[in-house]
């Protein structure tokens, strides 16, 4: 696999686009003639956030933020035609199961609760729609200085219909928690998830999109990382027809740290989109992003956009982002776009890389030359590709579960 790398500790702004059409293995970037100048991240961060859906025009798909998304498959989440079916008492009542370790509380609250919107406000029409339309928000609180030994689990099983959701995870100062938000079932869903990581707190947040094949899921996940706090976000997307997850990170004080990991497996016809923004506006914070995906089958489509903005005030920032895609068959498409914008020279480091490639024939040959049949060799390589990332999660139970899911995908799809 070839790499496009652009590592810089200086003041240059960089933006590269990697577009892979059809056969994969194609790279673009500096020197390939495919570099494009885009709308600056600055402008995108500056979009006036709002809770009111009417503050956003209906997107048509040509807008920078929507240009990869197949709008007609959004189920009307973006243009007001999707209305919550739960309100009519019809299909689509989520089954939500909570596992709350001692000390953790869960409440359902209304739109006027003061804790809503603290980590982030909707930045696009679908997120605003979700905010305008949800019935009750779920607020999960981990009290200060509480160190959990068991994960908090939020299992959402959707049973069809249209749903709008809002979840707030409030981890108070010096608390430590692992929170797993697991999605199964099907339906059309728009959601906002807010992660409040208090000063000195540690949160590992895992969001698993294990939907049935026809689900539609659009979510904004906004995090506010406190002083000396650390967030580890793990986004895992296997299922669904169209899944679009938008993680956002801001820092509330210096010393904050965010690790953003993502893993996706797109099969024929699936559109899996992950676009993240890290807004470094506070000095001495760190971020590290690694997203890895595998694609197989006709019209499997993965989109990864990684926007990192280092503002003038954010001296001492250290950031790196990396996206890798493994294209297993013809007919799959990857759009991978790391963007790094740097407004101060006083940083520790900043870099990004993106690579999209096919199986490495030399790796397969090596394994086969040891007697391992071709299909098993391919599975070993894909398993290894993901295992490298899964090992970073640091929660054995979740790692095992994810490797099992990957195993199942491999059994079903890689032969």
């Amino acid at each position: 696999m070839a790499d496009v790398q652009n590592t810089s500790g200086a003041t240059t702004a960089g933006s590269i686009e990697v577009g892979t059409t059809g056969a994969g293995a194609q790279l673009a970037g500096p020197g390939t003639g495919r570099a494009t100048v885009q709308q600056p991240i600055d402008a995108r961060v500056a979009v006036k956030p709002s809770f009111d859906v009417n503050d956003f025009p209906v997107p048509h798909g040509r807008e920078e933020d929507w240009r990869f998304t197949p709008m007609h498959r959004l189920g009307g989440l973006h243009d007001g035609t999707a209305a919550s079916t739960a309100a009519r008492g019809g299909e689509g009542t989520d089954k939500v199961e909570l596992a709350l370790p001692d000390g953790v509380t869960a409440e359902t609250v209304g739109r006027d609760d003061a804790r809503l919107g603290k980590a982030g406000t909707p930045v696009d029409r679908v997120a605003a729609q979700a905010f305008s339309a949800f019935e009750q928000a779920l607020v999960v609180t981990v009290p200060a200085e509480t160190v959990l030994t068991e994960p908090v689990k939020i299992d959402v099983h959707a049973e069809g219909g249209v749903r709008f959701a809002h979840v707030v995870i409030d981890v108070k100062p010096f608390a430590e928690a692992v929170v797993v938000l697991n999605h199964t079932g099907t339906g059309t869903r728009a959601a906002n998830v807010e992660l409040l990581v208090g000063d000195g707190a540690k949160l590992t947040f895992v969001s698993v999109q294990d939907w049935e094949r026809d689900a539609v899921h659009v979510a904004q996940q906004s995090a506010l990382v406190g002083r000396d706090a650390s967030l580890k976000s793990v986004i895992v997307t296997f299922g669904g027809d169209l899944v679009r997850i938008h993680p956002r990170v801001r820092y509330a004080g210096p010393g904050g740290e965010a690790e953003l990991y993502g893993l996706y497996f797109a099969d024929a016809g699936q559109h899996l989109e992950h676009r993240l923004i890290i807004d470094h506006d506070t000095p001495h914070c760190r971020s590290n992003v690694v997203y890895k995906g595998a694609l197989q089958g006709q019209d499997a489509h993965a989109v990864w956009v990684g926007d990192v903005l280092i503002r003038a005030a954010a001296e001492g920032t250290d950031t790196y982002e990396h996206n890798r895609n493994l294209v297993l068959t013809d007919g799959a498409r990857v759009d991978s776009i790391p963007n790094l914008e740097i407004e101060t020279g006083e940083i520790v480091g900043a870099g990004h890389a993106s690579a999209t490639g096919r199986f490495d024939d030399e790796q397969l040959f090596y394994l086969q030359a040891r007697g391992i049949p071709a299909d098993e060799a391919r599975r070993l390589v894909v398993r290894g590709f993901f295992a490298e990332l899964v090992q970073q999660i640091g929660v054995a139970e979740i790692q095992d579960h994810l490797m099992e899911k990957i195993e199942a995908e491999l059994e079903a799809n890689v032969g």
Partner: protein
Amino acid sequence: MATLEIRDLHVSVDAEGGPREILRGVDLTVKQGETHAIMGPNGSGKSTLAYSLAGHPKYTVTSGSVLLDGENVLEMTVDERARAGVFLAMQYPVEVPGVSVSNFLRTAATAVRGEAPKLRTWVKEVKEAMAALQMDPAFAERNVNEGFSGGEKKRHEILQLELLKPKIAILDETDSGLDVDALRIVSEGINRVRSTGEVGTLLVTHYTRILRYIQPDYVHVFAGGRIVESGGAELADKLENEGYEAYVKGGASE
């Protein structure tokens, strides 16, 4: 007794201006228990021979035959060849990210032996083989060849040789990139496998120094894509003194 018979083997690679013939009629018979050294200058086609026998897709056999105990090796897939008993220790072993050495070794042993080795004896077997090659046990948990030094990669190749117990072992420049100590350790590993008398060894090398540790029964000089002279161990001494010059100038060429 296992026998590998290479007859009039011609092999091409896809080059810029079309196919380019690299092997131009290789004849060689290797029997179980024998050690053949193949020596030749850079670019003479030694690795091409090694890879072609293992079935690397880059190389196209245009004519000739390769039989292992009468079975047509050229019709077998890469993994079938390995399971039939052909082992290639590579000149440049490949990194496989995310796949641990222990997982790799066990998967390979399971494939080659036709059943998963019993866990208890297997763990012991691997431990002992690693200790004999003076490999730190920590290597078992590292990813295959990732970040290994040149010498560590070669030890890892010989570790596989010891565990997979092939009928025919093709060792492509296993000596290159090794310091004196490592050369001795790796050679001892190869000799342990040879001393079973159950493997036919094709030792591909550019230099004679490994032959101080591993006594070949036959030495073949490889130049211009074929064997141009064969003899006993004494031929290596001649090469040591005179080099390949005589073969390169006068030998088979364009």
